């Protein structure tokens, strides 16, 4: 069950797409009450300006959040959490994001990724031991993967755990950097190289460990000075000869890369939900500003260019919400693989909030630039979302390469390369050209409300076109495709927009069904506007893919590099 993967072979998984998911009435009511508590807590107890200025979250705020129960939303009740669905978590996370950027990042580092590994891969004993205090917020968790020489290339970490027969334990050495909650967490999910036997040879593979701060040799560095989310804790974490007992191995020895990737998959979904919450807050504030601020004798909200901005923000929210909720629904229905969806959610929502914060600040004009207003802080806080938990560039490459696996499988020559693209990078040449082109049929849509069916028409057309372009790209580039990042980015963009189209169509159908009249009509209007833009972007990306103007871009880049950063050949940099 997957929405995005079938696009690459020209299919629509209708079971994954319809009906648009919703929460149980019981969870909705719980959320409604929790949201009120969180909003009131935000108003009464959280001073974001001070958190930003002092670059720390006051203890009372963390204690208050713990009391409210936000540190254990996703943890099952038997380990003292609330055992909520992914959709509930996403929506609660939205509300936290509306309160404060530093708070949402702290909670996310704890719950979306810090304790997630224990939840997904921990043994019963590990869960019993670690989860209850984490769920109650008495202890915080952190996820420690990144190192000075290992950012996007996560497989290249140097932190090492060596098995000591003598001590019957792992000895952990290494340094992690930019660890969110690094200064305040009590429990770390740490990734380290370990020597394992594979086909008779000893090789390095990553293993995940649960490392409590209380172990001898664990320490954290001073707080980093950051652009935004300044109240969240970000530090180096050092492991010096830390004796880690074997019962703290998380998952299998040598299976740590999988742990990291799975955890980040769900983490990205939470992050995307946070971005959605941020966008909602920005739209609310920009709207009230536009209604109050008067120029030329009337509120600026009466001018079309301001209205266009507000409408654009509303569409960003509707679109991002649709893909995020559709994906959380997949998770709650037990879908095994939602990695493409969560990667696209993260990319789209983080870039959405960046555009929205930019527009909100623009509506506020000069006021928006001043520190008396919160927009500059929102802008600084929002920026990290395009970087952490996988840069948007890496996630686009991931989306395309992972999506290409299935069609690549049919073209055996590239299958192996695609399965391990990073390792095979640059090693691939040639590939059987000229095979008979497979006929790609337009997939069918189910019977939809007439208004929605009209909007949905471009979807099957462009899914088929996309699959054709995928096959073309594989034929054109063969295994070299892994190096053609600009082409991969175009495929990822197109896949993302197909996902967006599919999600808003599904949601409009549900909106139309659940709310006859103006309520449903509002869904249809939004879906129409979004689909109309999205299919044109898909057309453009696929057109560019074949025309390949990207070669010229590469020529310009080569000239820039050859002249150490001059914009024209023969000039000096900065001339």
């Amino acid at each position: 069950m997957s929405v995005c993967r079938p696009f690459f072979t020209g299919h629509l998984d209708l079971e994954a797409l319809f009906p648009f998911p919703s929460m149980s009435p019981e969870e909705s009511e719980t959320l409604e009450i929790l949201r009120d508590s969180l909003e009131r807590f935000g108003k009464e107890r959280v001073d974001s300006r001070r958190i930003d200025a002092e670059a720390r979250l006051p203890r009372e705020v963390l204690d208050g959040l713990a009391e409210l129960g936000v540190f254990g939303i996703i943890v099952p009740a038997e380990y003292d959490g609330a055992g909520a669905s992914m959709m509930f978590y996403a929506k609660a996370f939205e509300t936290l994001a509306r309160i404060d950027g530093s708070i949402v990042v702290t909670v996310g580092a704890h719950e979306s990724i810090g304790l997630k590994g224990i939840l997904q891969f921990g043994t019963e004993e590990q869960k019993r031991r670690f989860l209850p205090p984490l769920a109650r917020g008495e202890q915080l968790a952190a996820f420690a993967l990144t190192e000075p020489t290992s950012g996007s290339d996560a497989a290249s970490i140097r932190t090492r755990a060596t098995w000591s027969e003598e001590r019957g334990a792992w000895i952990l050495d290494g340094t992690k950097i930019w660890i969110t909650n690094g200064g305040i967490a009590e429990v770390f999910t740490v990734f380290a190289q370990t020597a394992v036997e594979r086909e008779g040879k000893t090789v390095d593979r990553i293993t995940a460990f649960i490392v409590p701060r209380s172990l001898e040799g664990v320490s954290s560095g001073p707080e980093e000075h950051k652009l935004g989310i300044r109240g969240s804790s970000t530090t180096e974490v050092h492991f010096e000869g830390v004796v880690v007992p074997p019962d703290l191995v998380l998952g299998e020895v040598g299976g740590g890369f999988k742990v990291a990737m799975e955890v980040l998959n769900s983490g990205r979904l939470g992050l995307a939900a946070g971005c959605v919450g941020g966008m909602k807050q920005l739209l609310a504030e920009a709207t009230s500003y536009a209604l109050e601020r008067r120029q030329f004798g009337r509120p600026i909200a009466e001018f079309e260019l301001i209205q266009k901005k507000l409408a654009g923000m509303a569409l960003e929210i509707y679109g991002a919400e649709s893909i995020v909720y559709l994906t959380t629904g997949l998770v709650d229905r037990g879908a095994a693989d939602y990695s493409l969806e969560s990667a696209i959610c993260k990319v789209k929502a983080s870039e959405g909030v960046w555009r929205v914060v930019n527009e909100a600040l623009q509506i506020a004009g000069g006021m928006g630039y001043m520190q008396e207003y919160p927009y500059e802080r929102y802008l600084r806080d929002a920026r990290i979302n395009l970087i952490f938990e996988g840069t948007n560039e890496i996630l686009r490459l991931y989306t395309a390469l992972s999506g290409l696996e299935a069609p690549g499988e049919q073209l055996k020559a590239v299958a192996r390369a695609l399965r391990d693209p990073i390792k095979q990078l640059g090693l691939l040449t040639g590939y059987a050209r000229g095979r008979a082109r497979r006929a790609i049929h337009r997939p069918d849509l189910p019977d939809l409300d007439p208004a929605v069916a009209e909007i949905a028409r471009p979807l099957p057309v462009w899914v088929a076109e996309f699959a054709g372009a995928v096959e073309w790209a594989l034929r054109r580039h063969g295994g070299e495709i892994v190096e053609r990042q600009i082409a991969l980015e175009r495929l990822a963009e197109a896949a993302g927009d197909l996902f967006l189209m599919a999600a808003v169509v599904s949601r409009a159908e549900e909106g139309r069904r659940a709310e006859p009249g103006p309520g449903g009509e509002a869904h249809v209007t939004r879906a129409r506007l979004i689909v109309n833009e999205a299919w044109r972007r898909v057309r453009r990306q696929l057109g560019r893919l074949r025309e390949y103007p990207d070669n010229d871009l590469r020529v310009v880049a080569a000239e820039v590099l050859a002249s150490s950063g001059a914009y024209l050949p023969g000039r000096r940099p900065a001339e």
Partner: protein
Amino acid sequence: MKIVVCIKQVPERDARLRIASDGKSVDTAGVATEINESDQYALEAGLRVAEKVGGEVVALLLGPDAAEEAIRRALAMGAARAIHLNDAGFQGGDASSAAKALAAAVRQESPDLVLTGLQSDDAGWSQTGVILAQLLGWPSATLIMEIEQPEDGRIKVKRELEAGWFQWITLPLPAVLTIQSGIYPVRYATLKGIMGAKKKEMKKMGPADVGVDGGQVGAAGRKVELKRLYVPEKTAEAEILEGDAATAAASLVDRLQKEAKVL
């Protein structure tokens, strides 16, 4: 100690309200609701007393099905159980008919203390609590700012009077107190509390269940009839005070004292 707290569900503070087509009520479709503000403080006060001396807080609400959400909120905040006076026969009443229904339910519970908010944010009669006390034949006090720990069947409370004056009085229990807003920080409904509330008892009762004559409650029992509900009309009126600054200021003070009566 058993404490009954009467709560009411009202439209949220900044909700945009429309008058319904009958011209006598508010169209509640799609309007977010909350527990009436001073009732939230009554609940908080009740929970504090119960935490100090032991005992339970019972939330009592008169309202339609949709008011269940307010009950869930009260249970999530810490009420042990709830009684929902929910019947067509209770609808369309006024303060006195509401008080009759509440009094019947309170008699069945025979608590030591009844707390209500001092007034509702929607109707704003400020009557229900005191009529309730009268019907029960219990002592009552209004505008309560502070409650001391009950001792020997008596309770000492601080009342807010006019112009910054306060009054401490002691009442024998059982008693009815109407609580002022803003007296304590109201606790948050936590995720644990909200989920725990789903397991708590919520008893739905009609007039017969509480032993009250149907003719006494709801529309049948009301003494006040609402004739018309309307939004104040906006009118623009301005008066320019003539003369120099001193003359204009003197004239302004005079008008504020005699006409507007705000000084």
